[in-house]
């Protein structure tokens, strides 16, 4: 998704020595270290995925960038400025969609545009919304309520809704995790198509190694808890990417390598529990 390799790379999101610690509420006493000394630079329009074993803290990293959590140490910068709480500059796509059930598809997508922070005149609002309705393939469903939509459609609404307020970046927390395999593949292609037309910087958390490799410019392998960077792998496949890439020899090799790394981290996590 990156336009080209410049000598001066524009850093969009930066985590600098970020740590996050929680006080434990569960049986074990003391403090839980969820993220430790995490540093990462994400370039403008880069698509970066975080993969790693369950519970490793990848979602925590995302939540820190989103501003739902505050780092215990270190900094998180967006365009060089520290992040303070959630905001429209960082659009978030949740696994459970979180689209407003009491609004139609059209109203959901226009929701952000009616807020004081983003207000645009009514005539423009409809136009902007239709643009994103088209982008996410929702034509014909404008008057439908979420209860009438499938999981894939709901997620499309969520993405369109986030797009409409023109965020700087997209933060996606396992957005396709609740979908069946077929819908998941379709949504991956849909997302890439949308990003092809309207580029955004994306930080993507997923359990699926294949998904990460397929969508991203770079894949970050996270260690078992506390989250640190184990590996940074570039996916040197050109965009636009098609479904058939998933059966490409080089892709499969890359996928296997990444999978091995994640499995090793899984193993360490299991060993760690024995302590």
């Amino acid at each position: 998704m990156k336009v080209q390799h410049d000598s001066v790379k524009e850093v969009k999101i930066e985590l600098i020595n970020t740590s996050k610690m929680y006080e434990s509420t569960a049986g074990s006493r003391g403090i839980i270290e969820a993220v430790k000394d995490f540093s990462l630079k994400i370039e403008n329009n880069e698509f970066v995925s975080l993969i790693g074993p369950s519970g490793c803290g990848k979602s925590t990293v995302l939540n820190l960038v989103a501003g739902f959590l505050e780092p215990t140490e270190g900094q998180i910068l967006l365009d060089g400025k520290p992040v303070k709480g959630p905001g429209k500059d960082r659009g978030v796509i949740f696994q459970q969609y979180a689209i407003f059930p009491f609004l139609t598809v059209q109203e959901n997508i226009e929701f952000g545009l009616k807020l004081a922070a983003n207000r645009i005149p009514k005539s423009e609002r409809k136009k902007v919304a239709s643009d994103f309705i088209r982008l996410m393939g929702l034509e014909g469903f404008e008057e439908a309520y979420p209860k009438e939509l499938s999981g894939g459609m709901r997620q499309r609404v969520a993405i369109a809704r986030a797009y409409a307020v023109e965020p700087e970046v997209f933060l996606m927390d396992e957005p396709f995790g609740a979908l069946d395999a077929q819908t998941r593949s379709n949504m991956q292609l849909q997302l890439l198509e949308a990003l092809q037309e309207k580029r955004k910087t994306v930080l993507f958390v997923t359990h699926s190694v294949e998904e990460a490799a397929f969508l991203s410019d770079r894949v970050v392998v996270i260690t078992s808890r506390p989250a640190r960077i184990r590996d940074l792998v570039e996916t040197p496949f050109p965009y636009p990417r098609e479904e058939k890439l998933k059966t490409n020899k080089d892709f499969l090799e890359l996928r296997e390598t990444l999978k091995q790394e994640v499995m090793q981290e899984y193993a360490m996590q299991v060993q760690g529990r024995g302590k």
Partner: protein
Amino acid sequence: MKEKIVKLFIGLMNAISAFGVLFGVWYIVYLSGVIKPALFPPPHIVLQQAVFLFTEGRLLFDMLSSIQRVAIGVFLGVTVAVPVGFILGWNERLGSFFQPLINFFRALPPIALIPLVIVYFGIGEVAKTVVLFYAAFFSSVVVMYEGISGIDPLFVRAAKTLGASSAEIFTKVVFPLSVPHILTALRVSLGVSWATLVAAELVAAQTGLGAVIQDASNYFQIPIIYMGIALIGFLALVMDLIIRWLSSYFTRWQEEFTA
């Protein structure tokens, strides 16, 4: 649209036939003479009395008295219960602190308070309003509390990531999500209040449907008692239907839960 009319028609037919069966059984029991006719009037006599009292007597006035009392009690009770229930549902600490207390008062039948209320407030309208307010408030505040605390905080997070201020989150997200609960609270408190009202009127009232029944029982006018009972049930049904119709419109976005 056509579907809805058909559905409505079928519903109406069902209701009429169900009640028809009831009337049928009623007639059969009457005709069989199992119960003394003096104690068990047939439907047409009851209807006769109803028409008579409506046109010649004060039945309409009594009906309106009862309805008015409930309306005031429910209005006051729910108006206070919505913000209070909201605060308790939204603020976990306050909510869990007051919960046992509120549950106690909700479980206590308002009818049990009537004698005490009479001592403090006499047998006038104020007394009745106090009891009805109590009934409406405690039944609806629990509904509000449970409903609000069940609202998924993820929606609030989503709104924040779209740029919503706290005020906007309240008006554009949380409030719409509470509408179904407000309507349920209304429905519940109406039911409880209506029941309480009748009891209150049986005990201490000169007007209202409860009073009509009480008077009739003093003079052993059984058909009027039957009529009063039927009317009380009928009005309760109508009020409930109105709210359910309102609900179905305002909560048309809600998912139907299937197993």
